[in-house]
């Protein structure tokens, strides 16, 4: 009896990771060698991964939707009467490899690429007098990457060869390719009766994007209120005939997106991205719109929104929303956004603080249109359709003044929409 590990196979040259799209087995299942155990998705191919052993599945380490580096363990299989030779090959002694830099067969199975140096690595190491035997590679198969060397140079010198460290650092290039600092956070434990929902797929992407945005970008916030009484009256007056002729709804949101696109053209600072030592002002105005489903959130993109009519934008919104509902959104539909408009008003919010859609510089929340008593210029009180526009901004890129002017311009455009405005 022995416990064997199945690892994420390299499904194609230059493929470095795979996502488990579906487990075909569960703990306790008996499998034969070459029986399919999981469906795995990679940049290149989608494939069924067969078992390398005959035995019983004892543990699924990777979850569905989880992306694992090539070589990381995905499950454990208990085999009967395992062949010791085979075992040795599967679980090579890492310490041996560490103590003996001229890796022989055992070590080679472990870090077969340790001694395959790229010209860039050789040159950098030569220039900085780094002994490559002393370096732990984080690339596939223990290969030393240019980044490994650069990190060494930045942190000042060669790592001391610490056998303990090498032992533990051995096979999984997990901590490797993404050198994220270890999370110290302690998570709550679930109590009896609680429901545990695994974090997979889109939820995971949302979590990491939000965290990245909120931790990297210094957010500032501002709000302006806009009187859209005339716009509401106008839209309501053409709503039915528009639906009849065009076949889709003319929503208020289309008017807002159009106004934002137009104002962005006049304030290109708002349509930009922080890029470390520079700010990139984007030429194209591509508006990301947030579309929610029951349990997730997508931000498809209306490309070149400034060149489109209100009708054109309404059509894009309808099309993208349908794709989200049908699960047919493509990667291309979500790429290239330069500014986000979020329709928080759709569920009744009147004020909200959006998290910027990384790496954009700002996000505008369009809140609910509500009827409110407003003191007009002539001192009279009137019932008006009012809406709050809330703007979150990257304070590295933008300051209050330009944002205020931009919002003011959006307000001006919206307040001037009336029956003389064309949606075509």
């Amino acid at each position, binding site marked *: 009896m022995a416990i064997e590990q*199945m*690892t*994420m*196979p*390299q*499904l*194609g*040259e230059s493929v470095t990771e795979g996502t488990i799209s579906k487990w075909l087995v569960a703990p306790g299942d008996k499998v034969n060698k*070459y029986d399919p155990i999981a469906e795995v998705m990679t940049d*290149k*191919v*989608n*494939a*069924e*991964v*067969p*078992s*390398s052993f005959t035995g019983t599945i004892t543990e699924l380490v990777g979850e569905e939707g989880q992306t694992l580096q*090539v070589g990381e363990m995905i499950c454990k299989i208990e085999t009967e009467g395992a062949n010791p*030779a*085979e075992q040795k*090959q599967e679980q090579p002694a890492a310490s041996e490899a560490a103590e003996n830099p001229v890796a022989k*067969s055992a070590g*080679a199975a472990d870090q077969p690429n340790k*001694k395959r140096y790229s010209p860039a690595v050789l040159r950098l190491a030569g220039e900085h007098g780094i002994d490559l035997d002393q370096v732990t590679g984080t690339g596939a198969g223990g290969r030393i990457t240019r980044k490994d060397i650069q990190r060494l140079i930045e942190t000042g010198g060669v790592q001391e060869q610490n056998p303990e460290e090498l032992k533990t650092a051995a096979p999984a290039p997990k901590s490797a390719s993404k050198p994220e600092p270890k999370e110290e956070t302690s998570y709550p434990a679930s109590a009896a009766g609680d429901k545990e929902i695994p974090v997979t797929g889109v939820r995971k992407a949302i979590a990491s994007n939000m965290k990245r945005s909120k931790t990297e970008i210094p957010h500032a916030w501002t709000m302006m209120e806009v009187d859209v009484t005339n716009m509401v009256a106008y839209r309501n007056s053409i709503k039915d005939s528009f639906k009849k002729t065009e076949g889709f709804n003319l929503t208020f949101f289309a008017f807002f997106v159009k106004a934002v696109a137009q104002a962005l053209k006049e304030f290109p600072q708002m349509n930009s991205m922080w890029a470390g030592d520079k700010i990139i002002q984007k030429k194209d105005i591509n508006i990301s719109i947030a579309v929610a489903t029951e349990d997730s959130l997508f931000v498809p993109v209306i490309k070149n929104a400034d060149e489109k009519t209100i009708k054109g934008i309404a059509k894009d919104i309808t099309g993208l929303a349908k794709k989200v509902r049908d699960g047919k959104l493509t990667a291309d539909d979500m790429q290239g956004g330069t500014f986000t408009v979020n329709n928080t008003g759709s569920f009744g919010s009147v004020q909200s603080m959006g998290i910027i859609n990384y790496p954009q510089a700002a996000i505008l929340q369009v809140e609910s249109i509500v009827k409110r008593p407003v003191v007009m210029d002539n001192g009279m009180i009137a019932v008006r359709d009012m809406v709050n526009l809330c703007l979150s901004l990257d304070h590295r890129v933008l300051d209050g003044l330009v944002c205020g002017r931009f919002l003011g311009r959006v307000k001006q455009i919206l307040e001037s929409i009336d029956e003389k405005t064309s949606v075509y």
Partner: protein
Amino acid sequence: MSTNRHQALGLTDQEAVDMYRTMLLARKIDERMWLLNRSGKIPFVISCQGQEAAQVGAAFALDREMDYVLPYYRDMGVVLAFGMTAKDLMMSGFAKAADPNSGGRQMPGHFGQKKNRIVTGSSPVTTQVPHAVGIALAGRMEKKDIAAFVTFGEGSSNQGDFHEGANFAAVHKLPVIFMCENNKYAISVPYDKQVACENISDRAIGYGMPGVTVNGNDPLEVYQAVKEARERARRGEGPTLIETISYRLTPHSSDDDDSSYRGREEVEEAKKSDPLLTYQAYLKETGLLSDEIEQTMLDEIMAIVNEATDEAENAPYAAPESALDYVYAK
């Protein structure tokens, strides 16, 4: 009832069954290689699946003691018929030192084995065509009765190498058999986007040699065509261009996702004419194969494949120092 076609072609019952056995062995080795690739044990697979009948039918029509073959990367059926073993192929798949093709240096599918007159090829496609013509010329100069058999895909037939080789061979009436294994796709490019002519064999007349198109799913039809070409070569009448029509049942390689360029229905439809099924049906109709015989054959083949897999998996890699061998003469 079907007629006994193999006897009419001069094939014994044993040879007819051996052809099937070789096709089945090629298929099973190929299938195993996919499993090994998908479990992360071998880096790359490029398949013969769907083309076994053309490959094996052709190889059986040659003089397997004398002739030279210059296979292209899918020709597992050809090299098995010419004496390469399952173990040899697995050693290549695992890139082990004992790989007779290149000692683990080349990618799988770069077949080469001197003792069996299988001539190694380069990765750029079609380079083997002029080589085949050169070998035929050498045979002529040395007054040997040999033919050079060279295969390539229909995509390769658009390369300059093909033109140069075909032209030279025809001008000098050299004993070359050009066999185009038309599997309808050049990686992702379908036939009608590769060539404007109806058949690849239409090109033969332009070089002044006969050209035929045969059903690549029928090993006997391919056997007949290659047999005739071999006899022309022997008589000094020059080269022949044979086109075998079959279908690539797998993606281009283990690194390819074919669902992005061809429909599943198309592949399923092609599987109905899988040469292993149709030829098996023929052998059963002629009484050469029964379920029992087939099962025994399959068990034997799986034992061979399993043994080859285990042996290759546990075999040593080439020593790093050997990387420079064969680069300079010693």
